[in-house]
């Protein structure tokens, strides 16, 4: 079974209700820079992952697994996986 190369994006964001000191600090800094109308900022992470897998489905499964095991701390974070190519 030959593998294909996939370019995936993983987005890890804080769960609702989890405080986000960095997001808060950015809100404050944006305000002090004169940006108005900013209601909320939440900071998260992205991972651009290039991986080999037998199929898109296999790649997705593997990425979800990576999130569960390492990329996200599921106590405080949610994740979303998308494969671009």
């Amino acid at each position, binding site marked *: 079974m030959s593998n294909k190369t996939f370019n995936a994006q993983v987005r890890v964001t804080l769960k609702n209700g989890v*405080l986000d*000191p960095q997001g808060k600090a950015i809100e404050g800094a944006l305000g002090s820079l004169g940006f108005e109308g900013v209601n909320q900022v939440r900071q998260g992470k992205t991972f651009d992952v290039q991986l080999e897998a037998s199929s898109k489905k296999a790649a997705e499964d593997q990425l979800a697994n990576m999130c569960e095991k*390492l990329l996200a*701390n599921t106590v405080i974070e949610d994740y979303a996986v998308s494969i671009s190519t």
Partner: protein
Amino acid sequence: MIAAISKICGVTPLLAWHTDSTLPDSDLIIIPGGFSHGDYLRSGAIAARAAVMDSVREVAEKGVRILGVCNGFQTLTEAGLLPGALMRNAGIKFVCKEVKLSIANNRNPFTQGYQLNEVIRCPVAHHDGNYFADAKTLQQIEDNEQVAFRYADGTNPNGSANDIAGIFNTKGNVLGMMPHPENLIEPAHGGIDGRRLFEGALNLLKAELA
């Protein structure tokens, strides 16, 4: 930490490598501070998934005492051995300073050397020490009296929920704490408030020996 332990108990602790699959037979396992793996991804995240942590989990279940200080605390939460998570400090910056800790539970080997509600001095040095747990978990921790130390006298340096500086697991044999008791164990450090924690955990307290 190694030097501190040697000074306190006169024995040099054994070291475990992150890829080890077994741990030496010991009374106390310490996961010290420091930026494991650069704290890349999340503080303690990569260390928590090191091979040696499987053995740590195993012996923790058997009741061996485990202490995680600073990065060690972060690692224990990331590994699921302690509840909650340590988020970026509320002030965003790394903070190194002395704080006050009050002893929230002294019915435990780690804290038995202190009086309940005693306030001690202790330095902190971390970037991610802001303890977070969801409301339900927090309630459980409080109900089970799992809080070991709280930041006292308005010295909470990082925004931790309920001023939590250190917590036990439910069994009480695992302690994680952000402050560094090992940096206040001899007069040259300007105080010895941290000493009793190790003495308690290592069964070196006079009361216990008697």
